[in-house]
């Protein structure tokens, strides 16, 4: 037993250059794998949070940029007069917005003040924060990411310049900051304030970008998806109703379809790792044909040799994998890189479980790469191999 461990160690250390190069060639793809899947995980978490809220999103049928009349809200509410299935309906007006001269576009919405807190109950506001939302006409609830970026705190007076009419700076008072569970880049302020500003400039009022409808159960969600569209069919303002997850996902996939592209990228690099490891293992076995024959003649079984080669590959690849998983883990958990801004998912979270998963991938790479060399080692015909030594 002891002897075999020594032999494994000697095998890996007899050609340090080869071991180092191979480990690095496996570590790098593992880095890419961890980063890619952390991003995808971020998107998935974002969508799962959206799905949990049991909300429907009602937009204008032709295009999300076309407005709907505010009157739709009452009609949707009348679909369930008992208010046990449709809990709350909130109209949102997208105004985009910028802060000062910063080029970044915000996602700011004017929300119906009376139903906002009910519809977006995932914004867990305290009693006093709720009271402030109702009391302060210029109240705004900002996303955690936006708050971080501009250093906004509860109680601050802030200015945002909408990308739509009135196109000039509007002043707000931050009454609450969303938690990390909420959409980090979306801010909500009161629609009555917005409508007043619009009336002043003679701009269009009584229009919303979309409605969010909070349902009681999953069944209600499916039920009303069809019923709301049916309600407005053949009217001048037809609607398109989707659950929040589908709605958000259409945004993500429309923009470059990042999750899909990252998956392709990650698997291409894993392929690279497999080939690199297979190359090294096949060279190792080729160089050691004689030794393997000797081991065979000393009585090592075929299975034992197979296991020996596989273990060597496993040590090599998992070694590289540990380095590869450690780099992004340390970089995104213990350095300022962890606070870097990533669109939509805000900050990239590299979880320990993702790194553990990468190690499993590295182990898979090892087994797969060493398969052919290990079989050929196990099958070494004694006589010919020993003869070849000379």
């Amino acid at each position, binding site marked *: 037993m002891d002897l075999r461990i020594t032999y494994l160690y000697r095998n890996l250390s007899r050609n340090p*250059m*080869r071991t180092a*190069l*191979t480990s*690095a*060639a496996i570590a*790098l*793809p593992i*880095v*890419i794998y961890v*980063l*890619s899947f952390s991003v995808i995980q971020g998107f998935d978490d974002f969508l799962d949070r959206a799905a949990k809220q049991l909300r429907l999103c009602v937009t*204008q*049928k*032709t*295009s*999300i*940029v*076309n407005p709907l009349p505010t009157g739709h809200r009452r009609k949707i509410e009348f679909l369930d007069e008992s208010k046990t299935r449709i809990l709350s309906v909130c109209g949102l007006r997208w105004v*985009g917005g*910028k802060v000062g001269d910063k*080029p970044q*576009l915000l996602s700011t919405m004017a929300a119906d003040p009376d139903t906002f807190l009910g519809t977006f109950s995932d914004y867990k506001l305290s009693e006093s924060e709720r009271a402030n939302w109702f009391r302060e006409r210029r109240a705004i609830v900002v996303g955690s990411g936006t708050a971080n970026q501009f250093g906004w705190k509860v109680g601050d007076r802030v200015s945002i*310049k*909408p*990308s*739509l*009419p009135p*196109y*000039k700076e509007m002043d707000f008072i931050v009454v609450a900051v969303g938690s990390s569970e909420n959409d980090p880049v979306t801010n909500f302020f009161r629609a009555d304030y917005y409508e007043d500003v619009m009336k002043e400039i003679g701009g269009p009022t009584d229009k919303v970008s979309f409605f969010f409808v909070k349902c009681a159960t999953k069944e209600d969600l499916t039920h009303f998806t069809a019923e709301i569209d049916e309600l407005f069919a053949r009217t*001048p*303002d*037809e609607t398109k109703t989707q659950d929040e997850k589908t709605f958000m996902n*259409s*945004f993500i*996939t*429309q*923009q*470059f379809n*990042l999750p899909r*592209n990252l998956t392709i*990228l990650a698997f*291409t*690099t894993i*392929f*690279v*790792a497999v*080939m*690199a490891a*297979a*190359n*090294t293992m*096949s*060279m190792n076995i*080729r*160089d050691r044909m004689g030794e393997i024959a000797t081991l065979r003649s000393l009585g090592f079984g075929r299975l034992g040799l197979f296991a020996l080669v596989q273990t060597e590959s496993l040590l090599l690849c998992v070694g590289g994998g540990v380095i590869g998983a450690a780099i992004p883990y340390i970089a995104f958990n213990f350095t300022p890189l962890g606070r870097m801004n990533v*669109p939509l998912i805000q900050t990239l979270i590299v979880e320990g479980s993702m790194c553990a998963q990468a190690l499993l991938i590295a182990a898979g790479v090892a087994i797969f790469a060493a398969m052919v060399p290990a079989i050929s080692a196990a099958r070494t015909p004694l006589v010919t191999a020993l003869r070849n030594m000379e």
Partner: protein
Amino acid sequence: MALPVMYNYRHLLAHKTTSILTMLVIAAVVGLSCWLLSFSNALESSLAVAADETKILVLKQGATSESNSSITIEDFHRLDQLTGVARDPDTGQALISPEMMVQVFLPRVRDGGKTNSNVAVRGVTEVAFDVHTNVRVVEGRRFSVASPEVIVGVQASKQFAGLMIGDTVALGSGNDRAFTVVGHFSADSGPMESEIWGYLPALMNASTRESYSSAYVRVKEGVDPAEAIERITGPSIELKAETEADYWRFQSLGIRGYLFVASLLAAVMGLAAVLSIANTMYATVAGRTQEVAMLRTIGYPRRAILASFLVESAILSLAGGLLGCIGCILWLATVGNTKDMFGFFTFTTLAFEISLTPKAAAIALVSVTLVGMGGSLFPAWRAARTPVVSALREP
């Protein structure tokens, strides 16, 4: 005196497994890089066309794109004060084009209509064809101002369903006005090829809009567009103005960010490939110590040995690179070469086609060859310095 290339070729054949595995590593990296390169080329060339410096885009101040800009007719008429505007040589009309941007949700062709995309619908008047000089009807004819007709950009017609000549497309806020497609237009592969164009008053009516979205101004030759921009943003007109090039640079920020990250990851992969080549070449050199010593004895100089190993890795890299290029071409041919990019600011889709140009392939091949030779530099150097006598004496 140099070693014949055949010598390297035979050696590569002798170690088939190693050669093929190394080639596959290189092929994967080159294939991916080729795809990224083609993608960014397609995007760049599409946006480069929009870089007409004499064309100014006018939006409402505060608006970030044509989609969320709203210019009233009064706002628009303030542009009449502008000097330095190019004029139609026949009619003397100022080349200022009022335009309105709305959108329609259309099914994508590439996945059989499973997903839809926001396609830009632009309302224009006749002057638009003199302002956007690169827009040419390539098939069919222009829309008539008297009947509900539209023309469709060639990229849009290929990538979204129901936009062939003779088809009708439902537009307007209720999606209930039928417009007939009467022509296809090109715009030197610029972003406008992803749009649908129709007569401005007809589209405004259909979308129940009372204001324009934007205006395009063509400045007279020899006039500095910066001056005109200053005038437009100044107190008498008070609108937002930028050259079309700046506008598109801003709109494509997001996708450029993605491309940058993807290229970075591809570079990391490239590094893994270099290590892999170095590994293979170290093994090759180690296995041939005696052979090299023999070659040195019969008179081959050190640099011939060095060159020979470099050539060997170049052959390996080039072969892997070619495999990667073929892989990329096959991928584009089977999985699809059409891509569209959703502008987070415009809320519309920019469609383009990706193809692996000979130039991009050449760049990829030359760089992979250089990188491969770089990876084998140290092992080749070691080979060239093989001590002759002791190497020959070794068993």
